[in-house]
């Protein structure tokens, strides 16, 4: 009996791991797996980040088209829940057409830096950007405050406290600070306001962002077929969770393709900025080189007066905006649910995942701004390898968020 047990133990010890993964590869696969109880890390800069009432209000604000100049543009216009919270366009089209691709909101709250150029350092301050951007919502913070006062006063005050009477004529129709255009009507109306009123408006504006961020924190990537496979690999058992092509794609992703150099961790992003040497969109775009300067100067950043944790801002404290490789570099997107957010890249340069893989494979052209990331080398993948990588990327899509989060409450 003892001899049989010994032989069985030896066989088990010598049995190949599922799909022939080495111990080192199994550790890498484990690093990509989305945890079963995945939850966003705390955001101390937003003390309402995990407040259910703030999230319910934020969901209402997200779908409200009144926060726009044309009365027809809400966050949900470009971040359409039916399209994985993006718009399936190369570049966004709000009140006007923009130069950049719309990122998804699913998982947005998990990034260190927001937007393709990282010009915002929190989900709540990001939400303020499009509303005042003249090509997106083309609105102003005074109009946002008035819109909340007229349509969302009770739930807003329940969370953020009493509002001033926004129907008082001392508040102008439209006003926002615009130091780049000091002669604009909006900027002149802003500086003409009393300091106390400007501060009230800024506080309300920050609350608007914090409520939206509380809602967005509920929109999380979900475990996908890849994670079921990764769990089996972790436990050392065979799995049917992935088709053979996707397993081959995973092997390339962590091996010869070295995609994991930037697409690492459970969200498959390093939260960094890289220059892929892509063709420019409508105009040359400096990307992170400009975004790093902007985030440091943003009054709604981690260190600003509207942050709930202004002394805990290490990312801002040490950011070096002069880092040369920020030139023409853009944020590494998470690959969770990537199959659902075509087109791809910062100006929607690639219509399909096959196009993305083909470009990494041949690396055509050169960077028009800055220089291409030196770790990138043409990989000259065969057609079946390229198809395998696409199959792997498709295996990163889990279920959509809860249906109750996908429409106005």
């Amino acid at each position, binding site marked *: 009996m003892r001899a049989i047990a010994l032989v069985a133990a030896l066989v088990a010890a010598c049995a190949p791991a599922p799909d022939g993964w080495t111990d080192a590869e199994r550790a890498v696969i484990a690093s990509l797996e989305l945890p079963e109880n995945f939850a966003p890390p705390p955001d101390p800069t937003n003390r309402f980040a995990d407040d259910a009432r703030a999230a319910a209000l934020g969901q209402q604000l997200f779908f409200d088209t009144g926060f726009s100049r044309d009365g027809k543009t809400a966050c949900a216009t470009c971040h359409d829940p039916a399209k994985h919270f993006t718009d399936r366009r190369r570049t966004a089209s709000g009140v006007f057409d923009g130069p950049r691709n719309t990122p998804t909101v699913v998982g947005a709250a998990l990034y260190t830096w927001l937007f393709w150029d990282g010009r915002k350092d929190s989900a709540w301050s990001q939400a303020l950007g499009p509303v005042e951007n003249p090509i997106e919502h083309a609105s102003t913070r005074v109009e946002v405050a008035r819109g909340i006062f007229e349509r969302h006063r009770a739930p807003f005050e329940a969370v953020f406290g009493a509002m001033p009477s926004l129907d008082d004529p001392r508040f102008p129709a439209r006003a926002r600070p615009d130091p780049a255009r000091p002669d604009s009507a909006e900027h002149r109306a802003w500086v003409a306001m009393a300091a106390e009123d400007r501060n009230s408006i800024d506080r309300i504006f920050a609350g608007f962002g914090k409520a939206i961020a509380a809602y967005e924190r509920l929109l999380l990537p979900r475990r996908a077929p890849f994670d079921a496979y990764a769990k089996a690999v972790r436990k050392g058992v065979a799995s049917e969770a992935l088709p053979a092509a996707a397993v081959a794609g995973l092997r390339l992703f962590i091996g010869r393709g070295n995609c994991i150099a930037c697409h690492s961790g459970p969200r498959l992003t*390093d939260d*960094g900025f890289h220059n892929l040497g892509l063709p420019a969109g409508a105009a040359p775009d400096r990307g992170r080189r400009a975004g790093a300067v902007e985030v440091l100067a943003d009054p709604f950043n981690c260190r600003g007066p509207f942050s709930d944790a202004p002394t805990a801002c290490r*990312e801002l404290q*040490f950011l070096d905006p002069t*880092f040369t490789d*920020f030139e023409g570099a853009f944020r590494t997107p998470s690959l969770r649910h990537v199959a659902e957010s075509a087109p791809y890249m910062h100006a929607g340069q690639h219509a399909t995942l096959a196009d993305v893989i083909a470009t990494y494979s041949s690396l055509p052209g050169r960077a028009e701004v800055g220089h291409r990331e*030196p770790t990138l080398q043409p990989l000259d993948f065969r057609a079946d390898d390229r198809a395998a990588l696409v199959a792997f990327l498709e295996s990163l899509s889990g279920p959509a968020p809860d249906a109750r989060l996908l429409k106005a409450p």
Partner: protein
Amino acid sequence: MRTGRWPTLFALACVLLAGCGSDERRAPTAKGLYEVSWRPVEGVLPFNALFAIDAGVTRDGEPADVLLTFKATMPSHGHGMQTKAEVKPTGTGRFVVDGVKLHMSGAWELEFKVNGAAGEDVATFIETLE
């Protein structure tokens, strides 16, 4: 029955040859003017995350009254860090270097430049992140 003499001697040797299993790195500067030692404050070098380094500079075995500057680069990539580390003195010849972020895997060159009465010198360490 073993008395455990050999394991004890081995442990003693480790303590004497400081560095067995410890996370401290130590090297003389290029011209031999000083010795730099350092360790990550949390004990490990994290990948792509902000961390701090505890560093010490000695001359002839004594803590040296010097200024220290720090930078880290990836020689094969031709770039440094996306962060600007800050050096704070914490005592004679003792420093904390905060805001280090090694954001890509591969070989990093960590450079500790020392400036003191004996002159200016530099200690370089190569750390490879997987």
